[in-house]
């Protein structure tokens, strides 16, 4: 695993690059470790409180550990009327966890998402940012199998 100092350091010359650094950290760890928030504050010359404020503002960034596969289910209006609620229930049933939780084996995290810009075929879920469109509850096992 790459050292978080090196990951953050790669962005040190980008003014305002802390969010880019956070994205890079999440690519490696799926969340932003505590020490990395402090290190990012140091590298970008802001307070730790501010770096933490930035990390907690954006819904794609997380400061708590998450699973290897982050499944985000869109529940904005176009997905909502297409049956997103049923898709959420199907994921919860198949994984045995509730939205916002991570499976005990650390493999899957379920999250709500707002619109992911694939409204031509709803409902939409993304797994590690890759969109799967027109998902029905029946599709859920096959989608999960792709991650296993």
């Amino acid at each position, binding site marked *: 695993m790459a050292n978080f100092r090196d990951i953050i350091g790669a962005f040190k010359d980008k003014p305002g690059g802390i969010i880019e650094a956070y994205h890079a950290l999440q690519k490696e760890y799926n969340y932003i470790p505590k020490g990395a928030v402090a290190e990012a504050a140091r590298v970008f010359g802001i*307070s730790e409180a501010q*770096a933490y404020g930035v990390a*907690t503002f954006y819904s794609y960034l997380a400061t708590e550990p998450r699973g290897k596969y982050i499944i985000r289910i869109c529940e904005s209006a176009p997905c909502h009327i297409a049956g997103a609620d049923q898709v959420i229930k199907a994921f919860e049933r198949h994984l045995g966890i509730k939205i916002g939780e991570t499976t005990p084996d650390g493999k899957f995290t379920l999250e709500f998402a707002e619109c992911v810009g694939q409204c031509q075929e709803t409902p939409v879920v993304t797994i590690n940012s890759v969109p799967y469109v027109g998902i029905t509850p029946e599709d859920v096992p096959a989608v999960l199998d792709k991650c296993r």
Partner: protein
Amino acid sequence: MVTLTVNGRQIKAPRGSTILEACRLNGIEIPTLCYDPDLRLAGSCRMCLVEAKGRPLFLASCVAPAEDGMVIETESPDIVEARRIVLELLAARHDFSCQTCEKNGDCKFQDYCYRYGVKDSRFTDGGRHVYPIDDPNPFIERDYNKCIMCTRCVRACEEITVARAINVKDRGHNAKIATAFDGHLADSPCVFCGQCIMVCPVGALTSKVSAGKGRAYEVDRVLTTCTYCGTGCTLELNVKDNQVVGVTSNRSEEYSPVNKGALCVKGRFGWDFINSPDRLTTPLIKENGEFREASWDEALDLVAARLQAIKESSGPDSMAVFTSARMTNEENYLAQKFARAVLGTNNVDHCARL
């Protein structure tokens, strides 16, 4: 100068003023919560909204420039309605325990609820955050159940003290003032200066040291100069029943030219010695290993005589004068003058030289 019409009256203000500044300059009071003249502007509480003719939106007067020819209403029915709604929205998240609140009588939120007749909120269908009040530090009580998210504490911490201990975490209705990782102040760069208490318009940040000792309207405020160091900060002793029960900031340039109200942990919280029974009130002279009380005249005579004797027996350079940063520059000057002119030695030193 620009000329504008406010509430039907023509007023003038320097070009570059905000509407709020222009109004205040002309004795027109507009309520504010997040505005603080010593901090960068936020424009976020929306209490200072005014109506400007020809503008579709209300203007936040603390950030809106006063422009020539503007026609403004500061208390129109629509504005009063908007302020009431803002207050009611805040009331729905605010812990109204005014009876026991340290800020009772000195709270801007309470004042404005009174002014606009907000007794209750129509938005109370649950959803009030309940935050634990559990920061164990000895100085600052943090009760975010009373916080109205004006962020003045964040700005004061960043801009006046530059400790940068706190910021806003999360967003929307979950937004909250927090240290990094939402921990205790002692684990943050906080220096416990209490500038956050100074700027907090409500009872979210109060002094633990003064808790329960007296309300703002019960105390006399006595201006004095802090004795902890030579900086000479002005502070306001809060006196109740002839006892010091707290220290607050006087933020006026006139009375507080050195610090404009900003204090350090010692000045703001370290005043309990004043009424301490352990405090010396007369000089003590040690005789046969025991201290006894003496008068100033007796003590000074004794010191003068002993210094004279040492100077005659061992020479002036057998003595030295060591002074303290708790004295003013002038006092330190006098001390070295005393060493050189009276004692006759150049052995002068000061703790700040270290």
